């Protein structure tokens, strides 16, 4: 089922959480709402779920073309997974998952054995076989989150909403679980929206990423689109490390082709660390002169911090370790900096 959000506004006191947000989530897609804390992403998710209501006079929420703006959370047929699981502590895994079925009115409630069947299927689906009699406190964080997911799926929702689902887990489990979520999504193809502040997570598993900042949507696109063609300096900075350098100075040094000087431009060029090229200084070499200030070697890539001689700007660079060895660059060496590619938000100029 597709989700259409149009012109939603929400204020908490004097704080604007959502400022006229529009969003379309196509049917069967896995969409990430990505943004820093306070950007409104969780509020938007909660409004889609019906846990929060948009300010009066603002727009609508449509599920598959049907207006659900005034429909209560319980009747929207959404599955909601909370960051801190919100499992019922006094119920076993089985009882937690069965809850949504057991609270139905007698007419709609499946009978005991049907409930048991469905719960067992879900337990299998989230790979928690044999743990159905455990209480939530007897499970690990990752297991708890999967119980929460199974509980949300038990009521056969049309839409699955996850609020920072992996936020409370440690790094390794988080990676495993998000890949598992991706595979899981490919199996069941349920329209899914998840909130995250982790750009890596969003870029890795989402079909489409919605980047939010200060109560507004900054950009919507596939992970590759938003990474390669960021729509704003904010998006550029938010999706990974970036160097912001004064374009003119670099051009004079021959580090990249000269931009046309433009009135009113910020004159900055945005470059990812892996797009920085370093060469040892030698007669005839071109590029901006710089001194290597830090060398960080733990990890697959060597990370260097160099200081430009002319402007004293620091530049972060990432090159592979064999390449670093081949170049023979060490601490405090003089190097020349060139840009493989960069991005400028001045109109129609990019290199």
């Amino acid at each position, binding site marked *: 089922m597709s989700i259409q959000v149009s012109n939603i506004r929400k204020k908490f006191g004097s704080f604007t959480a959502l400022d006229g947000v529009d969003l379309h989530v196509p049917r069967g897609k896995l969409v990430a709402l990505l943004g820093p804390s306070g950007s409104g992403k969780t509020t938007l998710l909660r409004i889609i779920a019906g*846990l929060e209501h948009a300010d009066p006079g603002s727009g609508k929420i449509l599920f598959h073309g049907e207006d659900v703006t005034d429909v*209560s*959370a319980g009747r929207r047929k959404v599955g909601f997974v909370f960051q*801190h699981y919100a499992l*019922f502590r*006094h119920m076993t895994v089985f009882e937690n998952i069965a*809850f949504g079925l057991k*609270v139905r009115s007698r007419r709609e409630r499946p009978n005991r054995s049907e409930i048991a069947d469905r719960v067992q299927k879900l337990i299998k689906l989230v790979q928690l076989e044999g743990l159905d009699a455990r209480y939530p406190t007897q499970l690990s964080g990752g297991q708890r989150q999967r119980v929460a997911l199974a*509980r949300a799926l*038990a009521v056969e929702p049309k839409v699955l909403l996850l609020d920072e689902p992996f936020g409370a887990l440690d790094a390794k489990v988080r990676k495993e679980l998000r890949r598992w979520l991706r595979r899981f999504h490919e199996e069941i193809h349920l329209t899914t929206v998840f909130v995250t502040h982790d750009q890596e997570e969003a870029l890795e598993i989402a079909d489409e990423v919605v980047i939010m900042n200060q109560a507004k949507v900054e950009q919507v696109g596939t992970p590759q689109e938003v990474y390669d063609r960021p729509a704003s300096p904010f998006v550029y900075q938010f999706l990974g490390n970036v160097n912001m350098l004064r374009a003119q100075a670099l051009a004079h040094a021959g580090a990249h082709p000269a931009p046309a000087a433009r009135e009113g431009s910020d004159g900055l060029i945005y470059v990812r660390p892996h797009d920085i090229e370093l060469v040892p200084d030698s007669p005839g070499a071109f590029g901006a002169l710089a001194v290597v200030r830090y060398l960080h070697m733990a990890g697959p890539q060597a990370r260097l911090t160099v200081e430009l001689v002319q402007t004293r700007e620091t530049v972060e660079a990432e090159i592979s370790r064999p390449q670093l060895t081949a170049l023979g660059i060490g601490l405090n060496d003089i190097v020349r900096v060139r840009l493989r590619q960069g991005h400028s938000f001045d109109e129609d100029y990019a290199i």
Partner: protein
Amino acid sequence: MSSVRAPRSILPGFGLSLGFTLTYLSLIVLIPLAAAFIKTAGMSWADFVSAVASPRVLASYRLSFGASLAAGLVNAAFGLLVAWVLVRYSFPGRRVVDALVDLPFALPTAVAGIALTAIYAKNGWVGQWLEPAGIKVAYTQLGVFVALTFIGLPFVVRTLQPVLQELEPELEEASACLGANRWQTITRVILPELLPALLTGFALAFARALGEYGSVVFISGNMPMRTEITPLLIMTKLEQYDYHGATAIAVVLLIASFSTLLLINLLQKWSRRFHRV
């Protein structure tokens, strides 16, 4: 000679603090209570039985336990409501109401007893309206129950408040998303979460009511066989220099309250079965 030393703890003073705790508990709790048992042990079995099982004493047990139980239950229900209102809603005067809850703790119980009697007597503020309806409060068993309810309220409210504050709103939201209505959310999600604290509050209110003396003696009228509570009976025996009789009843009361509290503790353990193991 080799000495075996316990592994050094980062928090020193275990021996000292435990020693102090034991000494303190002995002086304040254990020795006075043991004295009651020792005094009672000097009685013959027949004397003991006649002291603790005479019809007048049995009637006082019934009243004391019955009224304390009823007061505890009523406090559990209304204390939950008060705690809920104080935690969940913000309204003008909330802090005043919050402070009011503690009054029964601080007020001398005799004052409470006299005030309640004045209000519920047949010419009192409340009593004058109840009297025509045929409800007598002052000088009846109902009066005992009213006094015990009054002094027990803060125990339930104060044990529940922090637990209610900690209760995640997400639990209710999760329940609502899963299609539960408000009533189902309260009975199936919130109440089970609160049960351990509710039992603690109930146990405290009950225990307090069982030992209450000051407020009850004013409102009950102290008629033997009808409105005489057990602590009063002990007092009466003491005034008649019947020390053995008094301690014997005290021992029965002690054992009974101890077993009741033990039972409630077991219940609590059961209601907390889902906590970390």
